[in-house]
């Protein structure tokens, strides 16, 4: 089985475009879904959780300038990790699933939404998100492919289940047996209160960091430095 089966043949380019759109664009886009979220028992909780996640994701848009020697610039910014598998096991709630989906999407990742839990609601969520502009190649609802098989997709970068704590060792084991990159397991095990999703570190599990160092003296930056030598302080 390949990722293309779910995401399409031009998946790499679609992911790249989505990822390069930036957190601000994605958060704005996703925020448009808030008014139309498919109804569920925990609708009110969803309306508390998702804006909070999007607010946090918005803060991740900034490029951090790092101090360092003169004549070069050093910046750190965040980028999506890659294909994310989001699913819920029996105990999953809509709010936790929505939290994982919005987290993954806001951080620039393509999402494959699957699992046995809340299937109809998930289907309506996917339809809604497509309607508001999330590209089809970025968010896909799986067919009835078993989770175990989905976890073996070759380009998978992270798995974000909503499950119980006791289920985690098994997921972890399946992921560890894969070849290739180390797939991140980013679970929410508190489907009702979403205590992990609410924590400030959670969104960082969906991103990877990029550092950009530029020797600015190669493109005229030494002029600024020379001026510093003439500063009158």
């Amino acid at each position: 089985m390949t990722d293309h089966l779910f995401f399409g043949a031009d998946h790499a380019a679609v992911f790249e475009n989505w990822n390069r759109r930036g957190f601000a664009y994605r958060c704005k886009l996703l925020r448009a879904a808030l008014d139309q979220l498919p109804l569920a028992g925990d609708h009110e909780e969803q309306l508390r959780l998702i804006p909070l996640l999007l607010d946090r994701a918005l803060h991740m848009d900034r490029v951090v300038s790092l101090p360092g020697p003169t004549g070069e610039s050093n910046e750190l910014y965040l980028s999506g990790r890659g294909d994310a598998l989001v699913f819920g096991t029996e105990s999953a709630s809509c709010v936790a699933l929505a939290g994982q989906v919005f987290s993954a999407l806001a951080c620039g990742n393509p999402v494959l939404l699957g699992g046995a839990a809340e299937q109809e609601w998930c289907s309506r969520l996917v339809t809604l998100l497509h309607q508001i502009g999330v590209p089809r190649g970025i968010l896909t609802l799986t067919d009835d492919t078993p989770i175990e098989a989905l976890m073996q997709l070759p380009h998978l970068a992270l798995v974000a289940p909503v499950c119980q704590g006791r289920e985690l060792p098994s997921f972890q084991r399946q992921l560890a047996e894969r070849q290739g990159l180390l797939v991140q397991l980013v679970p929410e095990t508190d489907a009702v209160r979403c205590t992990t999703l609410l924590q400030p570190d959670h969104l960082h599990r969906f991103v990877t960091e990029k550092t950009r160092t530029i020797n600015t003296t190669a493109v005229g930056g030494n002029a600024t430095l020379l001026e510093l030598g003439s500063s009158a302080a």
Partner: protein
Amino acid sequence: MFKAIDTLEPGYIRQPMDLLWQQISPLYAADEDQVLRELMPLAEPHGDELTSIEARATRLIEQVRADDGAIHMIDALLLEYSLDTREGILLMCLAEALMRIPDTDTADALIRDKLSIADWKRHLSQSESLLVNASTWGLLLTGKVVTLDEREDGTPSGVINRLVNRLSEPVIRKVMQQAMKIMGHQFVLGRDMPEATKRGREYRERGYTYSFDMLGEAALTAADATKYYTDYTRAIDHVGNLPDIGSSPRPSVSIKLSALHPRYEVLQEARVMEELAERVFLLIRRARPLNVALTIDAEEADRLELSLKLFEKLYRSQETLGWDGLGLVVQAYSKRALPVLTWLAALSLDVGDRIPVRLVKGAYWDSEIKVCQQRGLSGYPVYTRKEATDVAYLACARFLLGEHIRGLIWPQFASHNAHTVASIMTLAKHADFEFQRLHGMGDALYDQVLDTAGVTVRIYAPVGNHKDLLPYLVRRLLENGANSSFVHRLVDQRCPISDLIQHPWQVLHSRDTLHNPNIPLPEAIFGAERNASKGPNILIESQWLPFSEKVGECLEQCWQADPIIDGRATPGQALHSDVRSPANRDILVGQVTYADHAQTIAAIDAAERFLPVWQSTSVTERTAPLRRLADLLEQHMEELVALCHQEAGKTIQDSIDEVREAVDFCRYYPARAEALYEEHLELGTLSGDTAHWQRQGRGIFVCISPWNFPLAIFLGQISAALVTGNCVIAKPAEQTSLIAARAIELMLQAGIPGGAIQFLPGEGTTVGAALTSDPRIAGVAFTGSTETAQRINRSLSRRECEPATLIAETGGQNAMIVDSTALPEQVVKDAVLSGFASAGQRCSALRVLCVQNDIADRIIELLKGAMAELTLGDPALLSTDIGPVIDEQAQSSLLEHIARMKEHAKVLAQTPMSGCTKRGMYVPPTAIEISRIDQIGREQFGPIIHVLRYSARHLDQLIDQINAAGYGLTLGIHSRNERTAAHIEARARVGNTYINRNQIGAVVGVQPFGGQGLSGTGPKAGGPYYLPRFTRLIPVDKA
């Protein structure tokens, strides 16, 4: 401390020469205020000097400004497009790169890059110069035309616009190239000597003379050095046969030592003193009979002492004895300038021949400052204020014009500052000196001097083709274009004369501090958060000699490593193993006892027992001993460097950098941890309430470190885990257990409790496996191969418990992409450093050098030449560039790869091995040309660079290929086209991108390090997001 005022005493230079020599080096990075306090009395105007200087300077400036021909069109252009405008910078960048680009597509793209983003409109009609206004119109139109083919969002626009663009591009390119040639013409006298002397004849008839310089920067290869040597010989022959013209003194030739030898470096002193000296002797033998004086140009501060040693050898030789024609340049911005002059005067006194000395202010100021900050040096070799350099210049001038120096040194004062010129004329009580100016600068000023002062004026005139002038041109543009430069202000009628004639002594005296508070010392660049790590400058005698002596003593030591449990070394019953140096298997470095299973369990037990104590210890109590450890590491720098040589085969600078990185980790993580634990965590809940949380260490962390950074990564992982409240079990790489053990000893000495850190040297299959299968382990920080990371992950996952945190930094297939706007010499320097430093055994090291077809042949030629100059050998020797690889297994694997590639690809070059490498694990640096990245297979962790050509049209396919490899650690980009660089950076899925520099040596807190995909899990080490992964949030009951 050097007493500057004493140098005015006639007896001063009669001291033994070695005493005067000893005054030079210690001033390299001496306290700036102290040095300037010494110099100030020499520069201070006495009696009526001040009024006399002011009157003279005023006259000169008025005369220059009254001269209609004084302002060249280039001056006017630079006045309008000064370097404090974006447009000025863009023009300079274009000048730097455009003419060397061989292919039109890339040249056009660069023009588009530079011209389309500036605001040319605001420069319209701002200048009185017709040329400048015409140029502005041209730039404005060009800027408009080149942007026509893009929509606002950067996507290509319609066919018609593209057509306009295509039709206009050749014209634009030609116009731009012509403009660059005009600028070149301003600063370069001629493309060859006949053209230069023809063009200079008019000046000679007016009484000027010349010092001709052959354009070209440092030679990277023996072939380039030979070419420059030939240029110099031709220049000498040509100048020697020039007829005398009127009163114009005989012209001379200036030589750049770095152009004459590919390794004119302190590290290669023996070669410099033999090979380079011989080459200069050849020039002297040629020049002397023709009566052509030679002047040795000054270069970077690190080479000053070497240049003086070489000068002394040349000057004392039979070839030179009795000749007044061998001179050199001294840079006044150097803190060592005055003691250098005293030493030269003493040398002249000793030998008997007068030495011509050109006193300049110095042209490498910006790079000197940058390099010192990067290397964590104790201070700067140059002054940090412009007026301080001017003061130093005048202090040196007073010395040079002293009666006791007359006849020993022939001063040649090089300046374009009317105040400096007026000062010299006022200070001089005799006429035994000359002025020098650069071709294309200060014409009007020196016309006045020539007419009124009766002093020789020599013009330093670069000769060479347009391609070679670019770096020189940039330096001149920087000098002329800066708003603050005297030349700039001189032609700016808006600048009052009173501002131009301020005496630098008065200006400096009026400052709150003599040094520039806007330029922090290298150790202070991180401000209040922490001190940057320090390192000695091994290229400076006064720092190198005491350092190397102590390292040498430590090399005699034999080290011992045992498991350390609960703060006590516990040799136990396990395997003892001898540690032998990878550089020479005959050298026994020490012994290590590997931990056995019982000790591994005992270590986990100890950590478990201590965990509650450590987790309840305040963050400041956890961080304090790590900061003490940082200080201890610096205090034990020499021993640790010796250990790095012996056990890891690291060269001297690599070893220093290793210790510095460890120090930086031990200061950075405490600062971050304190900030992290100060955060007030009041989080909303889904029911609309708030809940209080606090951070806590995850529990017991296992830190498994690699042999390639046996101290830095080892301590980086451990310090991150400790400051966040975890107890640590450290398992070092088997190959480097001794360094790790010594670090743990220092850690305990610094006050880290024995229960918090357990040390288990041993093999991965025994100790590592036992640790990662224990359910008490909450997390693992690992750096090493991708395969080992997968094994650890599997072992952790097989436990029936909550999944552990795994932070893995793994390998890379790192590329460098070079387009045809790049500077080939810089590319090759950076590629050699990125690919071969540390014998290529860095995660970040360059593996695939991707070069645009149009410049590939030149790059490969330079790469071959540079590789031929590398020295493999004993890592403890200063002259060694590349040491051994870590062990026999690494060696044979790399050699097998090279052998395999010989069958399917083309080996371009291989550095020769010397006999002294026979007893060690050496692999020759090798460059192999390939046609596809997937030919390489898995990462080759050694000194091998694969070279791949690509077509500019297929840049995106190249990026796709790099991404498809699955690794994503580092990427180098060399391009002067900022859009191209930004495009590559954005598309490449890598953790660290370096633009227009090498791609190794990430600095803690500056370049957070770590990759994606197969290269690691993140978060990045040495970055702001690293520590939270070592913690968990726990709810706090606030009631």
